[in-house]
């Protein structure tokens, strides 16, 4: 048992790393084997994650510690928070893998794509399981490197440019993060993350150092979390293939940043220290501003994917906002949005990809009447968009409920205004798409209909490998909202994560 408990976190990382590495060695035409490896990897990972979820909820701990550098071991461990992220990653990995297989049919360079795809998931999982700042940093940088080839996969000039900008932003961010971690490391070493943080002892003598390190950490993480003004790379990155955008926006990169912010606030500094040093007000204002800013920018976009990208800028800041409010209810709202936003945004990107692949529809103007041709895809899109607006009973409402209540609990009623404003802005930029899709006048025949999957509205409106994951995530977005009160919902798990942080 003890051995298994140690091996578990490593096995989860390896379950996507090894298939990824093997896939690199495959020839382009070994399709069946590649698909098998992908699916086998994801299945193994899902089983392992399920076992760990069960274990952690029963009070077992899973931890692997290896010597790495002085005063800092390489630690992989599963706690409630990391499992939330790991579960999201592996479930969405399954959906995205299926989708990507369908999406990339007929294009070149499959082995390269799927190889990096698996590596990307394994670094995400490693980042989630990282048990101290050094390990976190390692995987954070690896994530940059594994996502870059995916981003530029198409190889167009635009993609390369976006890739360059992405690297410039994230490597700078990584450097800032490194600086912050070095400062903290020289102060306190790099012990394991712990509830309420490990820096309280330095609170009196090193106020300035702690504040500086916090600013560096947040700046470094803020790049990936697309906090204003560090969000510039994200809207450009939408040139990537749809499954990559989906993964990027829902799990891998932006979430890694948000997840890091949660870790730093809860498990490095701790709630009480963050309170004493008054670190949170700037972050709170920044998050609030980013929420509104992202939405306003989204309004000005013509392309579906660009609009979705700016929407991510806004939505991911909900997570930061929830954490920055420093109250238990708000923290639940923020943390649960990690999952909720992931499900909804992945659905939206899947849909955008389907529109682009099946009918070559990229711009909002061309969406007129698309619901007649692809009712199921459009229905999934509608669910995702209404959820983003925070309308019940879709997942987004649960987030907004907890964030709103949390803001009132902490005596910050102005946050309600931000949430209301963001909801209205979301409506303003999503409703026109829904309107066009369902009620717009469809063209006589779609000019660039590829007839994927048969081209018959309904189950055969596009390739089933594209449609099935989309419907799955859309359904999941509704179910996690409708069944929020059940013990198996993300909300219940978030309660489980947050309560110890606040001593509840």
């Amino acid at each position, binding site marked *: 048992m003890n051995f298994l408990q140690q091996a578990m976190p490593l096995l989860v990382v390896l379950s996507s790393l090894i298939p990824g*590495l093997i896939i690199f*060695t495959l020839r382009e035409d070994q399709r069946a084997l590649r698909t098998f490896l992908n699916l086998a990897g994801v299945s193994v990972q899902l089983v392992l994650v399920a076992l760990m979820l069960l274990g952690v909820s029963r009070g077992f701990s899973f931890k692997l510690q290896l010597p790495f550098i002085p005063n800092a071991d390489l630690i992989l461990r599963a706690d409630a928070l990391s499992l939330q992220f790991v579960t999201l990653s592996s479930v969405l990995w399954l959906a995205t893998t299926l989708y990507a297989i369908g999406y990339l049919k007929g294009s*070149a360079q499959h082995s390269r794509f799927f190889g990096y795809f698996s590596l990307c998931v394994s670094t995400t999982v490693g980042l989630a399981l990282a048990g101290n700042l050094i390990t976190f940093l390692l995987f954070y940088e690896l994530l940059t490197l594994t996502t870059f080839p995916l981003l530029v996969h198409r*190889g167009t000039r635009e993609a390369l440019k976006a890739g360059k900008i992405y690297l410039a932003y994230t490597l700078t961010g990584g450097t800032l993060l490194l600086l912050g971690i070095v400062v903290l490391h020289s102060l306190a070493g790099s012990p394991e993350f712990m509830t309420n943080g490990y820096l309280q002892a330095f609170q009196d003598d090193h106020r300035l150092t702690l504040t500086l390190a916090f600013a560096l950490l947040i700046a470094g993480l803020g790049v990936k979390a697309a906090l204003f003004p560090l969000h510039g790379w994200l809207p450009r990155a939408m040139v990537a293939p749809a499954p990559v955008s989906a993964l990027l926006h829902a799990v891998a990169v932006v979430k890694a940043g948000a997840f890091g912010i949660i870790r730093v606030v809860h498990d490095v500094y701790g709630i009480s220290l963050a309170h004493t040093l008054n670190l949170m007000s700037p972050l709170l204002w920044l998050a609030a501003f980013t929420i509104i800013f992202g939405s306003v920018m989204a309004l000005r976009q*013509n392309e579906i994917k660009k609009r979705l990208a700016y929407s991510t800028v806004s939505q991911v800041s909900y997570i930061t906002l929830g954490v920055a409010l420093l109250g238990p209810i708000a923290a639940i709202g923020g943390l649960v949005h990690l999952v909720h936003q992931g499900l909804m945004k992945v659905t939206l990107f899947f849909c955008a990809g389907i529109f682009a692949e099946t009918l070559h529809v990229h711009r*909002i103007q061309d969406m007129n009447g698309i619901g007649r041709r692809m009712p199921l895809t459009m229905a999934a899109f509608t669910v995702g968009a209404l959820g983003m607006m925070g309308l019940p009973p879709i997942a987004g409402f649960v987030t907004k409920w907890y964030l709103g209540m949390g803001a009132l609990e902490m005596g910050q009623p102005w946050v309600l205004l931000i949430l209301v404003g963001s909801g209205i802005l979301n409506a303003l930029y999503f409703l026109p798409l829904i309107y066009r899709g369902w009620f717009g006048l469809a063209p006589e025949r779609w000019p660039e209909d590829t007839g994927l999957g048969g081209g018959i509205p309904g189950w055969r409106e596009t390739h089933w490998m594209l449609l099935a994951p989309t419907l799955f995530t859309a359904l999941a977005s509704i179910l996690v909202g409708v069944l929020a009160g059940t013990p198996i919902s993300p909300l219940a798990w978030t309660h489980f994560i947050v309560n110890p942080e606040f001593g509840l």
Partner: protein
Amino acid sequence: MTGFFWLGIIVLPLLSALLLLDAGKRWRPLIWLAPLPALGLAWFPLEVLRVDFLWPGARWGVEDDLARNWLGFTALLWLGAGLYAWQNHKDDPHAPRFQAFWLLTLTGNLLLLIALDGISFYVGFTLMSISAYGLIIHKGGPGPIQAGRLYVQLAILGEMLIYAALMLRIQEAEGSLLLSDWQQSPISPLTASLLLVGFGIKAGFFPLHIWLPLAHPAAPPAASAVLSGAMIKAGILGLWRFLPEADANLANWSPWLIALGLVSAFYGVALGLLQTRVKTALAYSSISQIGYLLVILGLALGTVHDVSPWPAALALFGVHHGLAKGALFMGAGLAMTVKLPRSAWVLMTLPALALAGLPLTGGAIAKTALKTGVYDSDLTMLITLLSLGSLTTTLLVIRIMVLMRQANEAIANHNRMPRAYWCSWGLLSLTPLLLPWLWPVFIDNRSKALAADALWDQMSPILLAFILYGIVSRLMAGKTLPDPGLGLSRWISLRLKKGLQPAKPATSPPAEPARALPPLGTRWQKQTDSVTLASALLAALLLLLIGWLV
């Protein structure tokens, strides 16, 4: 366990959407029966269902007479309108879309009626509001699209205001979600204002009525019927459920609400008289009638001691107006499609005059209940205004009947009216006469309304109105009094849409040919390279693993 039937009435409409997949269309008419179980539960309410798996504290059921009566009339109206819609949309190629939105809207409407906690209410309210958009713009074309745009803009705004109020209200009730707890917790002026505007948009009283006169004529008749009969009342119900009862602070608001209700009541009539389209006139009549519901609400909030007469008055007024207005909207739809026989005109006057409070109808009982309540409070000067209200309402319904006849004369379709219309519209039109004898709450309250002296009180304003109508119609002939709010809101609505559209790119950007990624791409294409690298990594990994194990 019988409580699970409550879950059933919510899930059933959603499940029956599956019938839309039936390509043979054989079973599709069953969709219109979806409100039937709800009607059954209004008759035999079962124990409250605890739906904690949705969110802790979710409760569904009916606990008071108001909810029970409103659930009953809502289900009945949806059932009747459904039958009407079935006939009306028989040849409509877009019928499945209409049915899908119909079922979603119905689900929301039922859910908010059986909600015993604030979140359930909000969920139902939102579902209903947003889905109704699909009903309003169903016919397509510039009119419905414009109406739908204004509707959805206001609905979303209302939604967000209610969301903020919901959060504040949970906070004020110290975390409880139960509406019964909210009735006891004091409210801040901010929350109350948010609620008033948020729910007011849906209820459509002055000055938040602007979407009604556009939306009703645009929607198909069955949709107008449920919109005006059932849905706008959800706004009043929301206010009733979310505001505390017997609250000293809110008592100060009472005169203002009553005044607002009365302005709405008379303003609706004045503008309605000037309309030339039946359904627009009917929409203004709804604005006027919702004013009376607001008056009842205001009176209830002003009563600090004994609020007991008011829920009954709300129940009576809601049931009576919902069924009568539903029948009138369907009738207006009929008058514009088929030449109506004389018997149909007789039937049509019943709900029309019931709105004015014709003796022996449900309308008379509802109005008498309102007046009795006013007698017992200290605002007796309202009585005169209410009698005046009966008079003006009669003027408006006469105007509506005249417009209907004019519309019908232009119809060349001499086919016989299909039986489904008789069964839906015809039966609903009879309800004003049947209510006093069949509907329990009317039976309990009918004694005062049926007294001999009361009959004259009810009759005199109506008779006077018939005499006055000639003068009024001459005065009003050819005059227009534009609804100032309407023009402004239309303008804002359009600006909002135009301002938000991103500038169209001059030409579509030329598609860039996919170029293989030079350095990385070529290198990776060489199988040998990648194999070497991957194998090396794998080996390193294996070594690490072995090293750790040993």
